[in-house]
């Protein structure tokens, strides 16, 4: 899916609040078709990066390009092709359909196409048929409505800031499934942030690691495999497997017996694990 054409490029972005430097020269590139995971602990600068991308905060220095834009006016135009989830930006007294109709109108989706588009995104986030006002939604439903709003109009770029915050394992798996579907089925380039490494590892293909206001490394899943040279296999007879490896001339350097992850165990127990 990735075709190495950058859709977002940040070059040496600095953000200062008075004398306090929140971003100290962030450079990152997100290519078309990427699922790009932005990793960092709380306060590392992930949200500030998103705020600058979305035009909610002005950088103190550096260059930014969104879908080829280079001036503030062009950035504004390019943002029409960005969908984002950054929290619960919707009216609590409106239903999911009413909220989405509001944003569909603002995004300029023609009136006659709105119903079809709203039905489509509600189906993706599994909120179709829910008629109560958003204030009565559970946290998971609110997150899903936020994502429905983000993907309304099929934007080229999808920005998700901590979309799984506060969700239970099923909710996390559902969001992960939606993100992958948006990327694979609808061709969206996705940038998703989290401080939960395991979650991003399952979702993203490329990663930017942010620490103290700087992207300290950009790596891919392939890089991880290269660096680690570790594969994980499940066998029914461990001794026989080791014997086969030895017979094939493969030397086992290290043997680690791992318990199943809590997530694996949970889903085996209750079923599910993403649709």
């Amino acid at each position, binding site marked *: 899916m990735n075709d190495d054409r950058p859709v977002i490029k940040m070059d040496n972005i600095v953000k200062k609040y008075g004398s306090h430097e929140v971003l100290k020269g962030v450079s990152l590139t997100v290519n078309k078709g990427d699922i790009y995971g932005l990793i960092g602990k709380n306060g590392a600068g992930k949200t500030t990066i998103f705020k600058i991308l979305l035009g909610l905060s002005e950088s103190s220095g550096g260059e930014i390009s969104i879908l080829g834009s280079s001036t503030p006016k062009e950035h504004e135009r390019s943002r029409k092709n960005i969908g984002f989830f950054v929290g619960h930006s919707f009216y609590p007294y409106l239903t999911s359909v009413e909220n989405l*109709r509001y944003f569909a109108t603002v995004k300029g989706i023609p009136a006659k196409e709105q119903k079809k588009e709203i039905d489509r995104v509600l189906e993706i986030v599994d909120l179709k048929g829910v008629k109560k006002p958003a204030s009565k939604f559970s946290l998971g439903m609110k997150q899903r409505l936020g994502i429905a709003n983000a993907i309304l109009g099929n934007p080229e770029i999808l920005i998700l800031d901590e979309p799984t915050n506060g969700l239970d394992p099923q909710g996390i798996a559902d969001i992960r499934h939606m993100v992958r579907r948006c990327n694979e089925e609808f061709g969206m380039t996705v940038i998703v942030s989290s401080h939960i490494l395991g979650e991003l590892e399952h979702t993203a293909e490329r990663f930017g690691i942010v620490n103290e206001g700087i992207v300290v490394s950009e790596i891919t899943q392939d890089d991880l495999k290269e660096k680690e040279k570790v594969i994980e296999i499940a066998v029914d007879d461990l001794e026989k497997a080791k014997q086969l490896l030895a017979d094939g001339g493969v030397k086992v350097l290290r043997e680690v017996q791992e318990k199943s992850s809590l997530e694996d165990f949970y889903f085996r127990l209750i079923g599910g694990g993403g649709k």
Partner: protein
Amino acid sequence: MSALIKADTRRIFRKKGFWIIMFFMLFFQFFDAFIITDESAEKIMNDAQRNLGMGHLLIVTVFVFLSVIADDRKSSIFEANIAIGLSRTKLLLAKTSEFALVMTLFYFLMTSFRLLWYKLCSVPLSNRQLGLIAIYAAFAVAHGIICLMAATLADIALDSTAAGIITLVIMLILLSLVLKTVETIYKINLYNYIPGGLLDAAYANAAVGIFPWQLIPTALYGIAAFAATSALFNKKELQL
């Protein structure tokens, strides 16, 4: 920008509060007109002006402020609209247009109900006097819009809905009372220089057939409030 105005207007019509406030304001126009039908024309004119201004204007403007600005600020809708590519200046222009739209709708219906009732009850008012009531209502709308722009400035500057509401109370009620008291005690007329005073003077001119030139400085107040809000908002760091 027009898409935002359309979406917001439809949203406001879906608020229960809109219909509740509208019902009470219209009911009060009927009720008020009903109990004064046997008064003199002058008394009826004064009552009509009092009931379209001051307290009623405050109720309508507070509702409009909460619906157009505070709802959006509370739910980060400003941020959402900017993030999908709407410029901040266009966002403020849309909001100002919504002030004008919703205020006009309220006052059009309130004034129409009142005038219709006067007609039905054969209240002793000439067509010219009925026209003056309509002009007074139009000036009340203008006053409301300027105060709403000032309230938006306060809200954005202090990140506080309460600051916006307090600004409305000050501009629509307290400032007039204070400046009129100052005039009485110290013989210094400052009231005529604030939007409310200028619009009162404009109405007085219109009532005697003189061009209400005071509308020009009143409009300048509106432009100044918009320019200040826009300058502040364009520099404002918005939160996610």
